């Protein structure tokens, strides 16, 4: 580990000794927005190559995702799972734990929630059933990180590789569950039984947005508070900045590594739970929204600051919903939706 290994996690650390012109909030803002503009520019060039007009293309996306009343609602709905996932990634990344296996954790949780969903919402009235299912989602996501977490904690094995391998296993295992024990007998399509619409998360009155977005914002605020104002957050930051220093100040590095990894997985599992209980009510085989690596980029643009992820996630939600053609969005039953 070099001296600047901790700060280099943020990617943009100034050279030692030279005062940075880009310090302060203006610099942070520029570092957040600048890359996005460059990205849009690069995307525009790519669109020109394939023979589309970038301006009309982006215009359509903004129109659909932000300016139309239903578009805004869809974008806000989409933000809920993304924010939960961002919260999970920040907890891990701050501790220098590279949990990039988010998709596996997400899909395992999604399979568990939709597989047990119809029975549990049937057996327990309203909120209790949903709470149990969210707990199961968090547990499934958290447990799916345990192998990479243990390997990292006890053998120092690179968790980038192991968490990613577990993603491939998880995605396929979720499919096996959906096609096997959780498969619905009611339809020929390989999918789980559908949770009745009345048992899903309620919507915010007057809109089509389910209340998941409110929980997600609370989660983000909570993570921000814990990371900046509590001793647990400080310990995570110390572990991330300099593991050797962490040992010297008496932190149980192994335990903290495993705990942070599992919290990260639990948030990602909650993201899946909220998405299933808020929007879908079931999971179809081969469904994989691939949120993991997308959020990886957003979280780093936010420089691992939980609050800063909110506008960035909002921006991405607008793009992703704006780029979904309306009929697919309405039915919201397509594989990539």
């Amino acid at each position, binding site marked *: 580990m070099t001296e600047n290994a901790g700060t280099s*996690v943020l990617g943009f650390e100034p050279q030692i000794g030279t005062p940075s012109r880009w310090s302060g909030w203006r610099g942070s803002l520029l570092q957040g927005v600048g890359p996005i503009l460059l990205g849009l520019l690069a995307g525009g060039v790519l669109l020109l190559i394939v023979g589309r007009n970038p301006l009309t293309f982006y215009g359509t996306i903004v129109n659909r995702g932000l300016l139309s009343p239903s578009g805004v609602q869809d974008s806000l709905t989409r933000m809920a799972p993304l924010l939960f996932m961002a919260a999970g990634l920040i907890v891990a990344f701050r501790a220098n734990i590279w949990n990039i296996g988010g998709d596996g954790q997400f899909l395992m949780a999604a399979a568990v929630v939709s597989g047990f969903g119809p029975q549990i919402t049937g057996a327990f009235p309203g909120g209790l059933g949903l709470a149990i299912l969210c707990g199961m989602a968090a547990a499934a996501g958290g447990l799916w990180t345990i192998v990479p977490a243990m390997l990292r904690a006890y053998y120092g094995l690179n968790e*980038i*590789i192991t968490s990613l391998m577990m993603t491939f296993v998880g995605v396929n295992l979720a499919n096996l569950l959906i096609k096997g024990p959780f498969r619905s007998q009611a339809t020929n399509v390989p999918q789980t039984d559908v949770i009745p619409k009345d048992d899903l998360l309620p919507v915010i009155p007057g809109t089509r947005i389910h209340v998941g977005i409110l929980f997600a914002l609370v989660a983000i605020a909570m993570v921000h508070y814990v990371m900046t104002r509590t001793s647990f957050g400080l310990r995570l930051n110390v572990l991330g900045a300099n593991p050797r220093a962490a040992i010297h100040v008496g932190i149980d590095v192994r335990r903290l590594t495993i705990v942070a990894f599992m919290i990260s997985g639990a948030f990602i599992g909650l993201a899946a739970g909220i998405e299933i209980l808020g929007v879908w009510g079931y999971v179809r085989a081969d469904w994989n929204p691939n949120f993991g690596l997308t959020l990886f980029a957003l979280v780093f643009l936010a420089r691992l600051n939980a609050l800063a992820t909110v506008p960035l996630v909002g921006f991405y939600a607008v793009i992703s919903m704006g780029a979904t053609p309306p009929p697919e969005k309405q039915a919201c039953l397509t594989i990539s939706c």
Partner: protein
Amino acid sequence: MTELFTTAFVAALISGGILAGMPLLLAALGETVSERSGVLNIGLEGMMLMGGYGGFVVALYTNPWLGLAGGLAAGVLTALIMLVFCVRLGLDQIVVGIALLVTAEGITSVLQRAQFGTTYPRLDAMPVFQIPLLSKIPAFGQSLFSQPLIVYIGFALVVVVHWVLGFTSMGLNLRAAGEKPQALDAAGVSVVATRSVAVLVTGGLGGLGGAYMSIVGAGIFVPFMTHGAGFIAIVIAMLARGRALWVLIGAMLFGMSVSLSTALQLVGVNVPQDVVNMLPFVAVMVALIVFARQAYLPAALGSPYTRGSR
């Protein structure tokens, strides 16, 4: 169980193992070079995708050999980005690697859909090169010694990498850059230049591996076709601990674990597709858990080199 190991089964296992193992071998050899020099190339999968796409396009309009060269070039070009950001500017190798992967996934799938989204053109199979006598050996002769020429080149590259890393001053420099860059710098050799060469070699081999997938393996490029092969290659390189000959063994074993399901179907055992997809990754996890203590990475891996810093 005995009737399972029929000639057809063994032949399918070997030829399938080579088909699936060759891209892993090429990419893992590249990753070995990179890791030894101290650069953890997480973007390998992205370089394979770019190589697969670039190689396929060139092969479609010219011939397979130029296609393989094109794949190699596409990989090198992608690695150039890694070189600038990670080696020159010293940014985080993991972040840049993931960014490269996501970018490569996006670019190749957009271009593929725009160009071939409706036509799905296919390439002809590459001509095979029969090695006289050896290819006549029963059971495995045909599958082992009757392969496209690029397969033999791939095997030869194992020896080349082994020789360069172990027996040349270039190889010594590479290993020094990974273990103790300060020492290399003090000896008057540029760490940045050494690592730059290593990153470009990795890009080239990764691109070649991707091109093998699309040109020789599938005959077609489809988005996301590498499906984690780049990451399996990284694991193979990790477990091989920088030794080229172990990379060969690892790549072939993983190749066979992929082709095992195909071979099983040949003898009438039916396996669900999801199990087939999952198998190589389960194998990787088991290998990592069993050999967790043995996996070795160079001391300075992943940390950018700044002269004077400790």
